[in-house]
């Protein structure tokens, strides 16, 4: 039982990171119908720039703050330069292909400048101790991940509900053409949405770095896939769904590694993805909408 609870705690900590990767990704899909498959690679690109700043002597948190801003700007640029011209010609599937291409491009650029070997960060960025709760080791870091993810989800929900720009995002997701008639400048709000996807995703990646203290170029595509699978499990249509999907994915992975084999991890996770696509295409909390590409 203790072993099970231990896996639950660890899986929740990892899942909270997935949730943050999924919030922006899911919102881009919900509001704009775009599968933002360059998502993870823009984040990893920005993180490598942050890593270089640290090597040059900049303190960790300042470098990561700059990397977060960069992640937002990169996401905005990818939309502006790659997605928008294709979407405006109604080439939605080609926009998806171009998103993959943009991701590969960013990954290759990262490889050119930083190589393929993992980059390691120093220990002691955050305290790594744990509490003992009835025999279960509850680490500080998994709990911090959870608190950050929940706080961001709540703050973002409030932003969508109460602020003018938040309401503009909701209006565009409901009916883009009518939203335009309200005087909403659609392109600016789209930039805002991509900016958020970069910034919130980067916060998830910073948590990953503080937890595992390593960064590899292969992480980018993994982030995109985790975000995609979490979005399918939770369902498209609300920020909470991203949180739920991310955490459930993290717990599932943790359980599979613990009770089956970590070699079966991908088989199980992608199997789960197929099961959801076949039987519950709207996910656990999603609205009834046709999944479109």
């Amino acid at each position, binding site marked *: 039982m203790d072993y099970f609870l231990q896996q639950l705690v660890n899986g929740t900590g990892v899942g909270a990171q997935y949730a943050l990767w999924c919030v922006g990704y899911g919102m881009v899909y919900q509001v704009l119908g775009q599968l933002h498959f360059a998502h993870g690679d823009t984040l990893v690109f920005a993180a490598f720039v942050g890593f270089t700043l640290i090597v040059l002597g900049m303190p960790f948190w300042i470098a990561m703050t700059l990397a977060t801003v960069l992640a937002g700007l990169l996401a905005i640029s990818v939309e502006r330069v790659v997605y928008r011209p294709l979407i405006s010609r109604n080439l939605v599937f080609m926009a998806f292909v171009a998103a993959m291409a943009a991701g590969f491009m960013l990954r290759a650029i990262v490889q050119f400048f930083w190589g393929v070997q993992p980059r390691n960060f120093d220990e002691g960025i955050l305290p790594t101790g744990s509490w003992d709760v009835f025999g279960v080791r509850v680490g500080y870091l998994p709990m911090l991940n959870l608190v950050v993810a929940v706080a961001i989800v709540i703050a973002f929900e409030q932003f969508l509900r109460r602020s*003018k720009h938040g*309401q*503009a995002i*909701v*209006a565009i997701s*409901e*009916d883009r*053409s*009518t*939203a*335009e*008639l*309200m*005087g*909403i*400048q659609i392109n600016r709000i789209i930039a805002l949405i991509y900016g958020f996807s970069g910034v919130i995703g980067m916060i998830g990646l910073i948590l990953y770095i503080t937890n595992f203290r390593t960064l590899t170029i292969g992480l980018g595509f993994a982030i995109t896939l985790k975000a995609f699978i979490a979005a399918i499990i939770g369902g498209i249509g609300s920020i909470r769904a991203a949180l739920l999907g991310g955490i459930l994915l993290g717990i599932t992975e943790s359980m599979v590694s613990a009770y089956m084999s970590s070699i079966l991890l991908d088989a199980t996770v992608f199997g789960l993805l197929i099961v959801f696509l076949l039987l519950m295409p709207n996910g656990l909390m999603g609205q009834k909408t046709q999944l479109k590409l």
Partner: protein
Amino acid sequence: MLSVENLTVGYGKAPVLNDVDLNVARGEILAVCGPNGAGKSTLLRALSGQLKPHQRSRIEFNGTSIVGKNPAYIVNQGIALCPEGRQVFPRMTTEDNLRIGAYTRTDRSAVDADIEDYLAQWPVIERRRDSSAGLLSGGEQQILVIGRALMSNPTLLLLDEPSLGLAPVLVDRVYEGLKKITQERELSVLLVEQNVVKAMELADRIAVLSHGTKSFEADVASVTSDEVGSHYFEHVGGE
């Protein structure tokens, strides 16, 4: 106030509107009627900036050209379009639907007051202010989208088929409301409507669009609805 010359608009190659001329004076209500597919909604979408007209088209509003401007600019100039088919934002509340109509305004307290005013005038939607707009009845939604369009404080309101799909008793109520609103605000209105009788109760002037061209225009006081109807299919069969 609004002056339209040679308005030509098409999706793809074939134009839907051909050299249409129209004028709306300050405080005037112009009704544009015509059969399905005549180009009535296209006319309003071109005026609101959602469709780009052909180069030779001229649209002036208060002396400034608004041809080819984007919808946000045109809303800021004081033109609001209330689109066909009661396009509420279904998962937003009634109150939030009204508030998003005031998106271009920065005077927050005045917006709050305007929302309260409008809700006070319409108890049917006041009761549903916190429920999702998608749950409102057709008539309530029509009242809501008219209010939403008014929240931007327009001087010209473009109304697309406010009677569409409503029971006759609700059509009467919507038109009573429109009459009151236009009198109170000295609002100019370009009303697109299939229901000629209702349109003539509200409008000062009436025009008929048929096959993308204006086939008739007159003061409402000088014609009957049957005369207006006789101009619907003028171009059919003739040449």
